[in-house]
């Protein structure tokens, strides 16, 4: 009887020890799916096409198109290991028009190594290395970008973003607005990267499928690191070496990870 009790107690101790130790979980070779959910907003408001939003300087804008390119997505786990999504497929167009009823746009990353991820990094636009692969080596993305109106002539390259619509101020009403920032061939590099710490761990497993909810505050494109005036040349932003880097720096600052859902 006593031996039985002792054995039980010992068994309990072992099970407690093994439960509390994460190192015992062997994740080698295990992969899972990671979703990124992008949700565009304007300050504390949800983004809605055709709705007027105010800037800090009294100008306002309404958009009919809102899209941008995300690439080179990678995630770092709690031990410092980096998982880089395969380069060939690691480029995405986040298009508000493709959102669900709530205006949420999803990117699904398959075959992500099972781990507890704590940080995400991604690029906004197309880096020079990818651009220099040439038009022949862009896979399906070239056609996708062309279809989405995210491409100039190849020599010029990709538009990293398209904000199309109108703007108004005390002196003008519904003037054309077109923010088409990108790199300009190899002469001007506007590719930027952003690293965001996850507020809670994204636990990727074969059976666990987390979703990182990324909020993008598009008001910061105009009122970000630098506040810009539409009236001063920022209503038409295309290839200017003066205005495009300012917009690129502002765009880099619009993202935050709101929370992670572990499903």
């Amino acid at each position, binding site marked *: 009887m006593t031996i039985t009790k002792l054995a039980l107690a010992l068994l309990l101790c072992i099970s407690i020890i093994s439960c509390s130790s994460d190192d015992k979980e062997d994740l080698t070779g295990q992969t899972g799916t990671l979703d990124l959910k992008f949700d565009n*907003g304007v*300050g*504390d*408001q*949800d983004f*809605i*096409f*055709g*709705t*007027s939003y105010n800037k800090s300087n009294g100008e306002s804008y309404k958009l009919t198109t809102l899209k941008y390119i995300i690439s080179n997505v990678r995630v770092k786990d709690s031990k410092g290991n980096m998982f880089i999504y395969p380069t060939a497929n690691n480029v995405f167009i986040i298009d508000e028009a493709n*959102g*669900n*009823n*709530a*205006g*949420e746009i999803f990117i699904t990353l398959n075959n992500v190594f099972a781990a507890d991820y704590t940080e995400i990094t991604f690029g906004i636009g197309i880096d020079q290395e990818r651009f220099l692969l040439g038009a022949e080596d862009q896979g399906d993305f070239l056609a996708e970008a062309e279809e989405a109106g995210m491409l100039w002539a190849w020599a010029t390259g990709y538009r990293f973003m398209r904000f199309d619509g109108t703007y108004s101020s005390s002196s003008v009403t519904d003037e054309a607005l077109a923010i088409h920032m990108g790199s300009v061939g190899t002469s001007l590099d506007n590719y930027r990267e952003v690293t965001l710490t996850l507020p809670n761990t994204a636990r990727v497993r074969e059976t666990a499928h987390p979703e990182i909810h990324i909020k993008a505050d598009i008001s910061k494109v105009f009122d970000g690191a630098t506040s810009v005036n539409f009236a001063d040349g920022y209503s038409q932003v295309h290839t200017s070496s003066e205005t495009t880097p300012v917009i690129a720096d502002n765009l880099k600052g619009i993202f935050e990870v709101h929370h992670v859902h572990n499903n």
Partner: protein
Amino acid sequence: MGKKSSKMKKILIIVVFSQFLFLSCSKEDTIVYVAKPLNFDVPSNFPDMVYNLSNNPLTEAGFELGRKLFYDGKLSANNAIPCAFCHEQAFAFTHHGHTLSHGVNGGIGLRNAQPLQNMAFQKDFMWDGAASHLDLQPIIPLTSELEMGETLSNVIEKLKADSYYQKQFTLAFEDGEINTSNMLKALSQFMVMMVSSNSKYDKYVRHEDNVSLTQIEQDGLTTFQNKCSSCHATDLFSDQSYRNNGLSINPRLNDKGRFVVLENPEDLYKFKVPSLRNIEFTFPYMHDGRFDTLETVLDFYDSGMVDNGNVDASLKRADGSLGITLSDYEKESIIAFLKTLTDNEFLNDTRFSEF
């Protein structure tokens, strides 16, 4: 009832022993209907109640059955989306942080989940008033493909196969039938009991516990009475009318509001004036959840309204422009006042919680 908060103990419980019970006392295994009525008090600062209790008398067993149903995934197609999924108690039974309701198979509904509180005092339900009786309201989310995606008949089949429900329907209803009518009545009993009437504001207006408002709360109340209370009327904070408040149209949803119910062109873009109780916790705001904060809401009323063709006359200024002019201090003080409508007793009342 299994759960007894201190408040529950105050509720008058009348035990009616029927002859039926008497007869069945000798048979130990038989479960019988015993009506243990629940008392319902109308708060003294509230208008008259609308729900007719004589058609659905409140009983302990009926309320308990309604609570169980409210938290049971069986009411949805994938058995995983109960009513409580979009109606979380801690947020006055709203879908915390979500602009639109989520449902089975990743479906996303068309509107923001409204709080559940003081349902017994409402004439009709939903943002567009599509449900004219509380007993009928649950049919809408239950059968919506974007929400619970079920059919009433299938839910009843699932309940009939469950031993808890076999017992509880017998305890709750005289006819003991597991059917749609009794299921909806039980849900109503649970929702009728959900009364939020013990906020700081309530205690202030009822002169209870020597509660007083701070200067800024008092200023906010005064401004509120002058500029907001024609629509957010009575201590329910809604006149229960349908109005177009000049929100821009979201082309993705193109929600025509009450027009959908009666197809009356005068109802275009009209939505029910929402109560403001517990509004500190019911964000995001508006029928599509487009505003995250109360500041954004008041900025909208001050300077963000658009003429979508049918804006309510009460929201027009003398010069014909749209909006309610509010100074920065008026906005700040209105928000301070609105936070006095938070009712922590309600938000934490264990009678309404899952466990």
